[in-house]
C-alpha cells in the first residue's frame, strides 16, 4: 500500500474512466478517485476561498484490507469539524460497510493536487468522489464473490462489510479483497445509489473518534512520541516583531536538563528534557529586546488609520432618507485549545515533520526552502488538530521547529505557549465599516458598504503567508444581494501593518455581514417595520426566507420577555448554504449580558451528518457570543495586551445559552459548506438582541472590552 500511496496520481492500471475511478495495482482491492476542487456545482456558491484552488489531479484512495478494514487516507485535516466522520459515512453508505469498519487516517503532504482544508469546502469537494470510489469498490467485491460462488452477481447483497448470497453464504469484504483487486469488469452497477435510498447519509451519527476522545487516547501532535524529539520553547519579545539585541544565556545553559539554547528569527529557543525544564531555562535567559516596528502604535491609532482608509460611499440618491452606521471590530485570536505544536527532525539530506495543518503541501514546500532541502526530501505527517478556526492555514510553528531542529542537529518538539500564541500568533484583522441604506417611499433604494481592514505587510517567516489571510476573489461585503435593496455598492480599503494575521472562521463575512445585519434591524426600525417582517419582504431568496421563518416560529419571535431582555435575528448565505439565527439575551445588567437561548436553522443542501451540522452551528453560536460580547485583543504600543483565556474572554459555560436548538432544513440539492456558515448570523443575532434589550446601537466589538 505504501508504494501505491507514494504516487497516488500515477496509477499503473487505469479503468472505468466513465466514473473517473482508477484501480491501483495492489494485492488488496485499492481504488482511487481524482479529487476535483471544483465546488461550483453547489447552487449559489461563491468561490470557496483563497485556499481552495489548485490542480484537480489529486486522488482519494480506498483500500480494503485483508483484516476487513476499509481505509481511506484523507487529504484533509480533522480539526474538530467532523470531516473524518462525514467521509466515513459517505464510504459506509455506498460500500455497505459498518461505520466502525471504516478508518479515515489523514494523508501525509502530497506532491500534487489540492490538499487544503478551508473555505468550508471539504464536504462539497469530497461528496462525489468518495461515493463513486466506494460504489466502485462495492461492485468489485460483489463481482469477486459472484466468481467465487459461481452465482450471478445480481443475486448478491451487501451489508455490514460483507457480501451475502441468497443461500446464506457470507464473505467479509476483507476475505474478498485480493480477488476483487483483480476484477476489471464489474457485473453490477458501480454507480452511487440515489439519495432516496441513503441509509447512512442524512442520519444523525456520532463522531467516529468520540471514544478515543473521551478516554484520552486521541493523539495530538504534543502527545506523539518521536524518538529523541525534545521539548522546545522560544523566548519571544514583548512587542510584535521585536528583535533580540543581546542575550546572556549563561544561567539558562547551566540549568539541569537543558540541551541547547539557540537564536532563531522569533527569539531564543531552548531545547530541554521536559517542558518544565524548557520553560525554566527560558525564564532564566537575560535578553535585551529591541522594540518591534509597531511599537508606537496602539488601538486608537489603528482605529483612526482604518477610518481614514475607508473608501468614500458616494452620494446617496437625491431625496432619500439615510440609515447609517459605523462599525468597528477588534483583532481576535483564533485561540485553538491546542496551541501550535510541531515536531521536526531535520537531517542533512532529509526532514520529517509532524503537525496539524490545513495546508500541508504549502507547508512542506516552505519548510523545504527554509532549511535548504528539496521539497521531495521533506515529509510532512498531518496530525489531527485541537481546533483551528483558520489558525492552521499558516504553519509558523512548523517552520520554526524545522529551523531549530536543523540548528540544534536533533529532533525537537516545539510548543508555542498560550502567551506566545495570543501575543505573537495570528489574529482576525481589525476592521472598520461604514454602511448606509437609503430609503424612499418605504423602500430601500440603495445600500452602500465601505470597509477597511488591517493587512499584514510582510510575512515574518519569509513566506507570503499573508496570501492565506484574505479571499483571493469573491464578492465585496455588500455584493451578496441577500436583500432587494436597490442599488448596491461596496468598496474596501486597507491599512498595511507588520502584524501577524490569519483568516478566521467565516473570514470577512464574520465582520462585514454581522455589521450589515445590525443595520438591517435599524433600517426596519426606521421604516417602522418588524425586523423579521422586514427581512421577509426584502430577502431575495425563498430558501433564506425559509430558514428565517423556521427560527422565527421555533424561537417564538416577538414573545413577551421581561424588561432588560431582548430577541435578535440575523441571516446569512454563503458556500451554497443559508442560515438564520434567533438569539435571546438577558441584559438586565448591560455590562454582563447572558445569551439565554439560541435557535438556528440551516439549509446546506444535502446533509451528510445532521448531528455534525448541529455541532458546527453550536460552535458558531459561541463564536458569535464571544466575538460580539467579550473576546478581542488590544494592541498597546505594538504589543498584544491579552495573554491567555484569563483576559482573552472567550465564552465559558456561564456565557453559553441555557437552551440551544438547531433545525436542519430538508433538501435534495448538492451539499453546501457548513463549517463557517453560522458565524455572521449568530454574531448579528446576538448584537441585535443586545440592541433590543438595551435600547442601544452596538457599534464597537467586542462590546465589553
Amino acid at each position, binding site marked *: 500500500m505504501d508504494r501505491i500511496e507514494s504516487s497516488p496520481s500515477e496509477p499503473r492500471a487505469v479503468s472505468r474512466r466513465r466514473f473517473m475511478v482508477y484501480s491501483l495495482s495492489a494485492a488488496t482491492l485499492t481504488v482511487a478517485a481524482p479529487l476535483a476542487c471544483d465546488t461550483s456545482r453547489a447552487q449559489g456558491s461563491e468561490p470557496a476561498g483563497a485556499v481552495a484552488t489548485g490542480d484537480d489531479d489529486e486522488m482519494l484512495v480506498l483500500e480494503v484490507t485483508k483484516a476487513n478494514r476499509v481505509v481511506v487516507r484523507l487529504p484533509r485535516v480533522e480539526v474538530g469539524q467532523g470531516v473524518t466522520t462525514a467521509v466515513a459515512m459517505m464510504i459506509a453508505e455506498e460500500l455497505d460497510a459498518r461505520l466502525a469498519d471504516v478508518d479515515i487516517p489523514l494523508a501525509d503532504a502530497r506532491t500534487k493536487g489540492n490538499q487544503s482544508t478551508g473555505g468550508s469546502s471539504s464536504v462539497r469537494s469530497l461528496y462525489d468522489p468518495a461515493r463513486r470510489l466506494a460504489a466502485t469498490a462495492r461492485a468489485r467485491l460483489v463481482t469477486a464473490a459472484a466468481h467465487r460462488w459461481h452465482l450471478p452477481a445480481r443475486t448478491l447483497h451487501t451489508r455490514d462489510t460483507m457480501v451475502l448470497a441468497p443461500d446464506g453464504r457470507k464473505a467479509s469484504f476483507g476475505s474478498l479483497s485480493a480477488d476483487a483487486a483483480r476484477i476489471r469488469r464489474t457485473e453490477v452497477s458501480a454507480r452511487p445509489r440515489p439519495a432516496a435510498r441513503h441509509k447512512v447519509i442524512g442520519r444523525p451519527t456520532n463522531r467516529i473518534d468520540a471514544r478515543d476522545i473521551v478516554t484520552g487516547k486521541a493523539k495530538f501532535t504534543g*502527545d506523539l512520541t518521536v524518538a529523541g524529539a525534545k521539548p522546545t520553547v522560544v523566548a519571544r519579545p514583548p512587542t510584535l516583531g521585536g528583535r533580540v539585541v543581546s542575550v546572556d544565556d549563561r544561567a539558562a545553559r547551566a540549568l539541569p536538563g537543558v540541551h541547547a539554547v539557540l537564536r532563531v528569527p522569533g527569539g531564543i529557543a531552548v531545547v530541554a528534557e521536559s517542558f518544565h525544564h524548557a520553560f525554566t531555562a527560558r525564564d532564566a535567559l537575560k535578553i535585551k529586546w529591541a522594540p518591534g516596528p509597531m511599537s508606537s502604535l496602539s488601538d486608537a491609532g489603528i482605529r483612526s488609520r482604518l477610518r481614514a482608509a475607508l473608501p468614500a460611499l458616494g452620494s446617496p440618491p437625491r431625496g432619500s432618507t439615510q440609515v447609517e452606521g459605523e462599525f468597528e471590530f477588534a483583532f481576535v485570536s483564533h485561540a485553538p*485549545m491546542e496551541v501550535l505544536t510541531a515536531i521536526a527532525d531535520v537531517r542533512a539530506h532529509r526532514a520529517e515533520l509532524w503537525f496539524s495543518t490545513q495546508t500541508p503541501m504549502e507547508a512542506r514546500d516552505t519548510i523545504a526552502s527554509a532549511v535548504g532541502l528539496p521539497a521531495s526530501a521533506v515529509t510532512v505527517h498531518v496530525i489531527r488538530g485541537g481546533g483551528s478556526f483558520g489558525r492552521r492555514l499558516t504553519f509558523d510553528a512548523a517552520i520554526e521547529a524545522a529551523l531549530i531542529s536543523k540548528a540544534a542537529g536533533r529532533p525537537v518538539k516545539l510548543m508555542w505557549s498560550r502567551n506566545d500564541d495570543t501575543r505573537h500568533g495570528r489574529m482576525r484583522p481589525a476592521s472598520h465599516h461604514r454602511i448606509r441604506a437609503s430609503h424612499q417611499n418605504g423602500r430601500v433604494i440603495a445600500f452602500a458598504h465601505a470597509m477597511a481592514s488591517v493587512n499584514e505587510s510582510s510575512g515574518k517567516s519569509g513566506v507570503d503567508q499573508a496570501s492565506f489571510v484574505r479571499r483571493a476573489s469573491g464578492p465585496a461585503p455588500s455584493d451578496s444581494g441577500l436583500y432587494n435593496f436597490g442599488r448596491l455598492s461596496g468598496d474596501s480599503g486597507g491599512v498595511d501593518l507588520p502584524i501577524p494575521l490569519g483568516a478566521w472562521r467565516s473570514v470577512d463575512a464574520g465582520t462585514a455581514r454581522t455589521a450589515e445585519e445590525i443595520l438591517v434591524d435599524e433600517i426596519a426600525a426606521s421604516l417602522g417595520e418588524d425586523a423579521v417582517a422586514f427581512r421577509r419582504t426584502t430577502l431575495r431568496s425563498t430558501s433564506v426566507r425559509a430558514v428565517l421563518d423556521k427560527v422565527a416560529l421555533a424561537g417564538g419571535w416577538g414573545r413577551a420577555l421581561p424588561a432588560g431582555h431582548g430577541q435578535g435575528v440575523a441571516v446569512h448565505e454563503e458556500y451554497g448554504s443559508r442560515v438564520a439565527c434567533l438569539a435571546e439575551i438577558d441584559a438586565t445588567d448591560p455590562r454582563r449580558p447572558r445569551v439565554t437561548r439560541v435557535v438556528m436553522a440551516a439549509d446546506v443542501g444535502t446533509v451528510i451528518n445532521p448531528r455534525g451540522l448541529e455541532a458546527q452551528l453550536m460552535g458558531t453560536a459561541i463564536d458569535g457570543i464571544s466575538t460580539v460580547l467579550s473576546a478581542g485583543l488590544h494592541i498597546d504600543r505594538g504589543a498584544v495586551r491579552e495573554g491567555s483565556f484569563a483576559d482573552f474572554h472567550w465564552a465559558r459555560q456561564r456565557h453559553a445559552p441555557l437552551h440551544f436548538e438547531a433545525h436542519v432544513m430538508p433538501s435534495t440539492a448538492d451539499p453546501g459548506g457548513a463549517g463557517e456558515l453560522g458565524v455572521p448570523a449568530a454574531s448579528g443575532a446576538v448584537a441585535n438582541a443586545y440592541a433590543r434589550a438595551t435600547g442601544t446601537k452596538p457599534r464597537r466589538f467586542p462590546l465589553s472590552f
Partner: protein
Amino acid sequence: MPSYSFTLNGEKVTVEAPADMPLLWVLRDLLHVTGPKYGCGVGVCRACTSHLDGDEIQPCVVRVEDCAGRKVTTIEGLADGDTLHPVQQAWLERDVAQCGFCQPGQIMAAVALLKRTPRPTDADIDGIENVCRCGTYSRIREAIEKAAAEINTATPKITP
C-alpha cells in the same frame, strides 16, 4: 534529584523530578500520560483538569512534591477497563466532542462536580470554568444532566 512516589490511575509510580515541576509535565513528559492537555499553563483554561485524591485539580499549577503519597487520576484512569464512567458514556451519547482537546478536562471537571453535587442546578453547571473553544457547552450541559440522572438512578439515596 529528589524522587516522588504517588498512585497514578491505580498504579504506584516513582519519578525523579525537581520539587516544583508541575504535575502536568511529570505526567506528559516523564510518564507519557498525555490525556491531560496543556492549554495555558496557568490554571485558567483547565484543559489539564485531573483529580488528586478525588478532588479536581489543574496539574499545570500543582507541584509534583504536593502529590507525593497521594492518588492522581487522569482521564486515562476514569473508565473501569472497557466499561466507561457514566460521564464518559453520557459524553458519547450526546456526541459532545468536536476537536476533543479540552474534553478530557471537561469530563474530569464534570465528574468532580457530580461528586460534590450529585444533582447540579444550571448555576452549578455554569460554575465549570473549563474553556471549550469549539463551543460544545450546550452538549456538555446535556451530558452532565444525563450522567447525573444515570448516577442518581444507579445509586438511589437510602432514606430511613
